[in-house]
């Protein structure tokens, strides 16, 4: 029994503690001040002050992806709340569980266009899983419980809780506070969804399809990472020698060093993955939604395949690609049950594997290997590295030390996705669905808090980095050992690539004249280095990895380089363009 006088804001804090929340990312303002006041006396709720509310949402997102727990962000009313929108949309597209708390003007002035009043509930409806406006302090415990339950359950997603200032400030009588909430508590982490009894029938059909398939492939999406079922997928694949394709958001669900891996599918996927999809007679999709960047034109996707989709959210089924069979349920339930129903046919598939091996699973072989200092650069060691070389060296450094990485959006994102190989679960964070530039740095902040035991890297292009670079101040204030890397090509690289390839080289508004990035980092108090030559890359990465506080690395790469392979827009997956053979290196010091 707690007899301490309290108010709505303190009650909200109680609810957060009860939900297992330990950290919040936010930025204060008038309408959320009662809550910030309550936070002041709550050392168990750590608050991280970001410099822009978009970063609060991305940091909560990075925290959630790294830990599997619900991320929490907060903002004041009006502009604070509107600044959250991009982060909420990013989380919604990638099924990330978030709870966003926003201050709102007092209920007695709501609807009058009061100072900093905005209908954030209305504004965020399309980009949230659910939203609440708390109109009375009595509703606080139930709303908070429901908000966390909705965020975690089924396909996870962001939930908004709008908190008018008077509700936060309302005195809560002790007898109210000790009243049991009518909504039961939910556990942290995402919850297994209930199982439909008809499921087992469908599972039997799926197993039969696999037993009869000659050219099966598995496609793995973020659902496998979120449901922590990577091990089960690996066991299933190994038992049947099934080739495994990992989408951008499922990269960390299955190692691409594994002999069964075919790599990433879609627009910048490998030849082996894309051609396998087009020739497969069975696709087992686990926790993915067949995004258009993965499928190309839906009508031409996997023309010979029966498709079985295992997915927790029935609403995703058939939104783009229409599966022949849908196994709707939590992968933690459905995958083991499916495995139990299949007969091991590992002996089969030699012909299929023979065919698969004729296609490359390496996105590029035209990379100087910068793994060892003094390695042969063909006399070009004083030249800037290519973006791909930078990505390959970064991926090795990060994965070699068991680190975690967030990437931004653009060419560097695709090169990193192609070069990261280990697939340790929940170690790769990127905005796959919304493609949000500015995501990497704030998401890395959240991930660094969530998994302090891992070396954390943020890798961004010079364009995206400049969208949220102010968060270097947050990194410094929190003394977070985040290794910030900017792959600087002097362009909005991915835009330039499209202009080169599809707009006859008219570079409209894609050239960037950036600041001296390292000087900016130093101005924030972050030790910084700039790499301009190939032969500096490895030592610079080692230097960054060894840091115990924030560090910054600018890698100046070749300006005009394209990401390959590439499926041109509107083309089928097997119409991909592979990397052109580069001209012989100059100056020619080779024999």
């Amino acid at each position, binding site marked *: 029994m707690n007899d301490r006088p309290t108010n709505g804001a303190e009650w909200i804090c109680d609810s957060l503690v009860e939900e297992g929340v330990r950290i919040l990312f936010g930025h204060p303002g008038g309408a959320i001040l009662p809550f910030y006041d309550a936070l002041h006396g709550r050392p168990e709720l750590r608050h991280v002050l970001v410099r822009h509310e978009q970063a609060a949402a991305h940091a909560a997102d990075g925290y959630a992806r790294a830990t599997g727990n619900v991320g929490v962000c907060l903002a004041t009313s009006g502009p604070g709340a509107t600044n959250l929108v991009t982060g909420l949309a990013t989380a919604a597209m990638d099924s990330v569980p978030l709870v966003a708390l926003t201050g709102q003007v007092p209920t007695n002035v709501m609807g009058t266009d009061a100072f900093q009043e905005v209908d954030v509930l209305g504004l965020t*409806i399309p980009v949230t899983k659910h939203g609440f406006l708390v109109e009375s302090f009595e509703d606080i415990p139930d709303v908070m419980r429901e908000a966390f339950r909705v965020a975690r359950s*089924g396909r996870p997603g962001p939930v908004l809780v709008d908190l008018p200032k008077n509700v936060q400030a309302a005195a809560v009588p002790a007898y109210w506070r000790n009243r049991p909430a009518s909504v039961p508590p939910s556990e942290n982490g995402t919850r297994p969804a209930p199982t439909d009894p008809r499921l087992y029938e469908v599972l039997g059909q799926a197993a039969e399809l696999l037993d009869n398939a000659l050219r099966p492939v598995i496609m793995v999406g973020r659902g496998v990472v979120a449901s922590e079922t990577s091990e089960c997928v690996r066991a299933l694949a190994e038992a049947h020698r099934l080739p495994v394709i990992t989408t951008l958001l499922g990269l960390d669900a299955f190692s691409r060093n594994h002999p069964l891996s075919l790599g990433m599918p879609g627009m910048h996927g490998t030849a082996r993955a894309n051609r396998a999809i087009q020739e497969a007679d069975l696709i087992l999709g686990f926790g993915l939604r067949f995004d258009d960047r993965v499928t190309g034109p839906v009508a031409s996707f996997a023309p*010979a*395949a029966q498709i079985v989709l295992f997915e927790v959210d029935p*609403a995703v089924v058939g939104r*783009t690609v229409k599966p022949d069979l849908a196994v709707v349920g939590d992968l933690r339930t459905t995958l083991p049950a499916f495995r139990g129903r299949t007969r091991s046919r590992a002996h089969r598939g030699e012909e299929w594997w023979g065919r698969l091996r004729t296609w490359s699973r390496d996105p590029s072989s035209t990379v100087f290997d910068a793994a060892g200092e003094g390695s042969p650069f063909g006399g070009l060691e004083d030249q800037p590295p290519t973006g791909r070389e930078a990505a390959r060296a970064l991926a090795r450094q990060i994965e070699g030390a068991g680190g975690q990485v967030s990437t931004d959006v653009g060419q560097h994102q695709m090169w990193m996705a192609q070069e990261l190989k280990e697939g340790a679960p929940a170690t790769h964070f990127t905005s796959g669905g919304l493609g949000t530039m500015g995501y990497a740095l704030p998401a890395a902040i959240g991930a660094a808090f969530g998994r302090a035991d891992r070396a954390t890297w943020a890798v961004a292009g010079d364009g995206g980095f400049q969208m949220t670079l102010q968060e270097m101040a947050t990194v410094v204030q929190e003394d977070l050992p985040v290794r910030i890397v900017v792959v600087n090509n002097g362009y909005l690289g991915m835009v330039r690539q499209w202009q080169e390839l599809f707009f006859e080289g008219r570079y409209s508004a894609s050239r960037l004249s950036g600041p001296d990035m390292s000087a900016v980092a130093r101005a924030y108090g972050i030790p910084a280095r700039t790499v301009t030559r190939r032969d500096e890359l490895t030592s610079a990465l080692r230097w960054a990895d060894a840091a115990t506080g924030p560090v910054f690395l600018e890698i100046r790469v070749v300006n005009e380089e394209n990401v390959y392979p590439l499926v041109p827009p509107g083309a089928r997956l097997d119409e991909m363009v592979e990397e052109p053979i580069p001209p012989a290196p100059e100056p020619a010091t080779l024999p």
Partner: protein
Amino acid sequence: MNKGRTDGTERPEVETWILRLRDRPGALERVLSLLRRRRVGLEGLSFAKAGEDRLDVELHVGVTVVQRERIQVELAGLADVEAAEGEEPVGLRRLDSFNENEGTNDGT
């Protein structure tokens, strides 16, 4: 195989759906937002309070057969959409199906 892998070519039909909502801020807007986002043609809408904190909503929507099930499932998954007694899937009832030519938009 690959038959009907998309639903873009089907003709929409106008149907009447009944929902019972928890009458909370944003509940009705969320239903309408979902329909608009999924490009379901809204042909008619009426609603009435059902007791203190519930709302009954009647929607006339233009949907293709393939869209129907998916959107119904998605509607039923909204936190403020409640189960209507004895109905499957949760909270949704297909009352009627009109002639396919009755003034729908393309519904895709």
